[in-house]
Structures are given as structure tokens and as C-alpha cells.
């Protein structure tokens, strides 16, 4: 049970900077997810915290203790590896008991802790088996069990679900959530899958190229992304981006895309006025693009955009339509009753009150995003 603090942490491997000046506070009992594309430094950050990797600059605290020079085994952290890393020659029971016996925990106590963890994870009848006799999901549970019995201050999980099949992954997501609530321990979880991040995290930290992009609750990241990277990374299917020019007069701003022109709603006008005559990046999530026939009430449908249907993906409860307008390609997530066919033109409505605007140069969000 402890908070974790990264202070100006940098890690270099030769000339490459894996983690660049990371500042991050993780309160006690939080489920923090480090997410980003591969090579973004998230696993390195986790390994720095575990002590398996030594940092180049900065400080890491667990609780109030500076752990820079403390050996992994003395940091009171437990890690679940992507490959599970179960000891292949030991039974499940011994896999879980190994760490405890190294710490000279009395035999009876070890048995109690292992049995308890096995009960929580529902693997009581596997205790006498060897790892090779287990399925992927069972191995994953044993790896979790090995971490649980140690009762660590911080749980580190490095893509623990990526070796499971899709169905099991969804199921295990929910179980990990329950486990976190039950144990009340700080979890630091690394994944490249933003859906895992969204569904499990108390807070998400998005990394790209070793730099922390944004930290916040899943809702904050989804509704108020700090830059184009976060906006494009969080949410599936991903946000659509358009290079547009701000035009019109102070009380009636337009966004010019080249092939269509959008009226900026009154609520957004003030923030965009300073950008008049300049280019910005417009971000619209696929669910904010509607077919003209099925526009929800309260959305201005007076100026639809004409676009050509490229591909349609039927998801059952909704349709993903890939659209082309001029040089722009974008994706709309629409009502399944929409009857458009590939090759046809259709008229869509952009719900600009949910729009995101980013500076063209810095790619940073322009303040005054949807509330």
C-alpha cells in the first residue's frame, strides 16, 4: 500500500532516450494504466519502477522512500510479466510459494497465503500441476497469484492480457478490476491497448516517444485530449482529423476544408477567433458524424456535408462508414438503419458542439473544448 512518484525520470539506452523527463504521481490504491504505442517507453517506465532497469536521471519514490538505489527485491513490488515467467520446473504451489520461502516466511503461513490466493483466483485444484499442464488463462492466474501472495505495496503488470484470446481477455479485464478493488493495492498496468486502459484504469497516463502526453481519468482523456496524439490514440475507432482554415467574421466563424465548409457553433466561436485566417486541426469522433436522415435531436442539421461512401462495416448495432470528401478520408459511426451503399454519395452532419480543435504547429488542444 503505497503511492508512487516519478520525478524528472530519464532513461537512456546509449543514444536513444526511452523515457524522457517523466513526472508522474500515482496515489495510493490507484489503478494507473501506462498506455502508448510500442516503443513509447511504457514498459521501460515500469521496469524502472521495479528496479530491473536503472534510471539515468531523476528520482523514483515508493511511499516516502527514495528507491533509486534499492534492489528490486527490497522495493516491495511484485510484477506480472507478459510471458508470465512461471518457473517451469516447479508446481503451481511452489511457484507461488517461492518468493515467500526466500523471505523465510514460516511454512504454515506460506500454506495459508497460497491457499488464500488460490481461492481468490479460483485455481485451488491446479496447485499440484506444472505450468506446462496449464492453459494460457490458468497460467495468467498463477502469475497473478504469485504476485498476490507477496502482498506487495505496488503491483506491476506488463501487458498481462496480451497472450490471451479475445474472449478470455474481456473476461479477465473485469476480474482484474475486481481484484484491484478487493486487494486495495496500487496497480501500475502497462498496455498498448487503449480499450484495456479505458475499461480498467482509475487514471491513464499516455506516453509517446518517451514523453508523457497526458494523465487523467478515462473520461477526461476521451473528452478533453491535450493534443492530437492523445486524441487519436484514445477511442476506437479513432478520431477523424481535418486540416482546416478558420474563416468568416468574428460572430460567424467558418471552418474551410477545401471540399466543405462548416459553421462554428456559438459556444466555440470565442476560442477560435484568435485563429481566424490560420490553419488548425479539427478533430471529430466517428460517433459525432451522423447520417442526415437520423440526426439526433438538438444537433444542427442545416448544413450537411456531401461525401462518397468508400467501405461499409456492419457491426450489428451500428455501421462504420468510411467516407471520402475531396482529399479528406474519414469514418462515421452511424445508425444501422442507414441504407447507403459503397460508391454512392451520402449527406452527413458533423456535430461541431463536440468538436476538438488543435493548433496546427504544436498539435496542442485549443482551450474551450466540450464540457
Amino acid at each position, binding site marked *: 500500500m503505497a503511492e508512487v512518484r516519478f520525478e524528472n525520470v530519464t532513461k537512456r539506452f546509449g543514444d536513444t532516450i526511452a523515457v524522457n523527463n517523466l513526472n508522474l504521481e500515482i496515489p495510493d490504491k490507484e489503478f494507473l494504466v501506462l498506455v502508448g504505442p510500442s516503443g513509447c517507453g511504457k514498459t521501460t517506465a515500469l521496469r524502472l519502477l521495479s528496479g*530491473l532497469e536503472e534510471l539515468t536521471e531523476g528520482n523514483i519514490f515508493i511511499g516516502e522512500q527514495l528507491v533509486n538505489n534499492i*534492489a*528490486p527485491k527490497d522495493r516491495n513490488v511484485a510484477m506480472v*510479466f507478459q510471458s508470465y515467467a512461471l518457473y517451469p520446473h516447479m508446481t503451481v504451489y511452489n511457484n507461488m510459494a517461492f518468493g515467500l520461502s526466500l523471505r523465510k516466511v514460516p511454512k504454515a503461513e506460506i500454506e495459508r497465503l497460497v491457499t488464500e490466493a488460490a481461492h481468490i483466483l479460483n485455481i485451488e485444484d491446479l496447485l499440484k500441476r506444472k505450468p506446462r499442464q496449464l492453459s494460457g488463462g490458468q497460467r495468467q492466474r498463477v502469475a497473478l497469484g504469485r504476485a498476490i501472495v507477496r502482498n506487495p505495496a505496488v503491483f506491476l503488470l506488463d501487458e498481462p492480457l496480451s497472450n490471451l484470446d479475445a474472449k478470455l481477455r474481456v473476461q479477465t479485464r473485469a476480474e482484474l478490476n475486481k481484484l484491484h478493488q478487493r486487494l486495495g493495492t496500487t496497480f501500475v498496468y502497462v498496455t498498448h491497448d487503449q480499450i484495456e486502459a479505458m475499461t480498467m484504469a482509475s487514471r491513464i497516463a499516455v506516453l509517446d516517444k518517451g514523453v508523457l502526453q497526458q494523465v487523467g481519468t478515462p473520461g477526461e482523456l476521451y473528452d478533453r485530449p491535450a493534443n492530437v496524439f492523445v486524441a487519436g490514440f484514445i477511442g476506437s475507432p479513432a478520431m477523424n482529423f481535418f486540416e482546416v482554415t478558420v474563416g468568416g467574421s468574428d460572430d460567424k466563424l467558418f471552418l474551410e476544408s477545401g471540399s466543405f465548409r462548416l459553421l462554428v457553433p456559438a459556444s466555440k466561436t470565442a476560442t477560435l477567433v484568435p485563429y481566424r485566417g490560420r490553419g488548425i486541426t479539427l478533430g471529430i469522433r466517428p460517433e459525432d458524424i451522423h447520417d442526415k436522415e437520423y440526426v439526433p435531436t438538438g444537433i444542427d442539421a442545416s448544413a450537411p456535408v456531401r461525401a462518397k461512401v468508400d467501405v461499409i462495416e456492419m457491426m450489428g448495432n451500428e455501421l462504420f462508414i468510411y467516407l471520402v470528401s475531396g482529399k479528406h478520408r474519414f469514418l462515421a459511426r452511424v445508425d444501422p438503419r442507414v441504407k447507403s451503399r459503397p460508391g454512392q454519395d451520402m449527406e452527413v452532419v458533423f456535430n461541431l458542439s463536440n468538436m476538438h480543435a488543435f493548433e496546427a504547429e504544436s498539435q496542442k488542444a485549443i482551450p474551450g473544448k466540450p464540457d
Partner: protein
Amino acid sequence: MSGVEAAVVSGFGRFGTGLRKFASRLPLHVVIIVIALLWMTPAFGLLVSSFRPSTAIATSGWWTAFQTPFQFTLNNYGSVLSQQGMARSFLNSLIISVPGTVIPILVAGFAAFAFAWMKFRGRNVLFMFMVALIVVPIQMTLIPVLRLLTVTHLVGTFPGIWLAHTAYGLPFAVFLLTNFFAQLPKELLESAYLDGASNIRVFFRLILPLSVPALASLAIFQFLWVWNDLLVALVYLQDPSKSPMTVTINNLVSSFGTQWQLLTAAAFISMILPLVIFIALQRYFVEGITTGAVKG
């Protein structure tokens, strides 16, 4: 022609393809059997001779032994073991070979663990130097090592010859084990470190149990080399009461040059243990060789 053949094959179905597979492998089998027979014939001749009385050996070839009257005897073995000191030599061979196998493998294991998993300055240079020692011919080392052993009063002692065999065995053992250890999954070791294991614990509780195939094959190699060694024992172990079987048999050759019945019996006594070990561990033997080959 090919059409007919195809029809026949499809008609036979599975049976047909199986037959064809066997036919295509037939030459291979024939060659292997012929080679095996050629190799085994002299050894078989020695084995037969070792059970024949000296008069029979002197007057007729071993292949005539299978005619009546059968003349087989165990006297040769009895005589070799009791009068020629082979029993004592067998024991000496064991005393030399077991530590001569265990010590180098243990030392090489520690070294290989360091080479494979620990970061220290000069690791690669040191490893390359170690591996390069494989090419040093043993004859070149005989005089300097003998001097060294003389200075340290280890000539003619078992510890002296253990040390010599350890030194000769180390380079290859380190090379093989380093390669094997290095391909164990990194996460496994990291997991153990996080669990609180020290390097020594990781070595004994994780690395050794997971490396049984490599260790077993290495142990067989090293054991056979030490067991069959004549040169090292001859040079460093100049005390006849400590002679291993190789040295004793060599002496038999010089003093009983014509007593084939004794030589053959002694030779077979010295072969028993390696044969047993090889048959018992042949699974690891093959596994270990391929492991080394792929990684090396």
C-alpha cells in the same frame, strides 16, 4: 507410365504412400546397417576373444568359436581383475573421473552464469579468450603444467589430476553452458530477482534445474574424456597404485604383448561404465548435442 503409377498409388491410398516412403528410405537403412555392422565387427571379435582360453586364441580366429566344441571361459576376467590389478584400477578410474567431471562442470556453470547474465567490464573479451583456449593442443601444456604441479606438490595425487582435467575441460564447458544459459527467458530470472532470490539462489534453484539437458550431455562428454584419458594420467599421475584403467591396460600391452585374452578382457571391463552411462542418458546426449549445435 506415370499415369498408371498415379492410378496405382491412388488406388492403394494411404497404404500406397506408406509403402513408397519405405521404399525411398530403403537405401538409407541399408547403408546405415552396413556401416553399423562394419564398425561393430572388430568390437564383437574382441568381445568373443575375451571369453576364449588363451590356447584357442593363439591357434584359431575368433569366428571359429561358434563351432563345437564350444570353448568359453570367464577365467580371463578373473585373472585380469585379481592378478593384474584391474579391480583397483577400476576404482582409481572412478576416483579420477567423478570429481574430474563434477568439478569442471560446477566451475563452468558459475562462469557461464556470469558470462550469460551478469554485466561486468570486459565480459566479452574474457569470454572470447576463454573460448579461444579450446584450440590450445593439450601436448603444449604438458610440461608447464607438470612443473606447476611439481612446485605445488600435486604430482601423483588425485587432486592434481582433478585440477588438470578441470582446466582442460573448462573452455568447452563454459562455451556450451554460456550459450545454453543465455537462451533461458530473461523474465524468468527477473521474476526470481523480484521474488527475492540472490544470484546464488537463482543459479541453484532456477538455472541448474532448467539446464538438465545441457548439463547431462556435458557431463557425458567430460566423463568419457576423463575415463578414456591415457595421456594426462600417464604424465601427471606417476604413482602406479593410483593408475586408472587406461594406464594399466597400456602396461598390459607392453608386458603381455601376446596375451590377447587378458587385453581383450581388460578392454571390455573399461568399456562397461561408459556403455551403461551412454545407454542410460542417450536421450540427453542427443538433445544436448543439437542444443549446442543450434546455439553455437
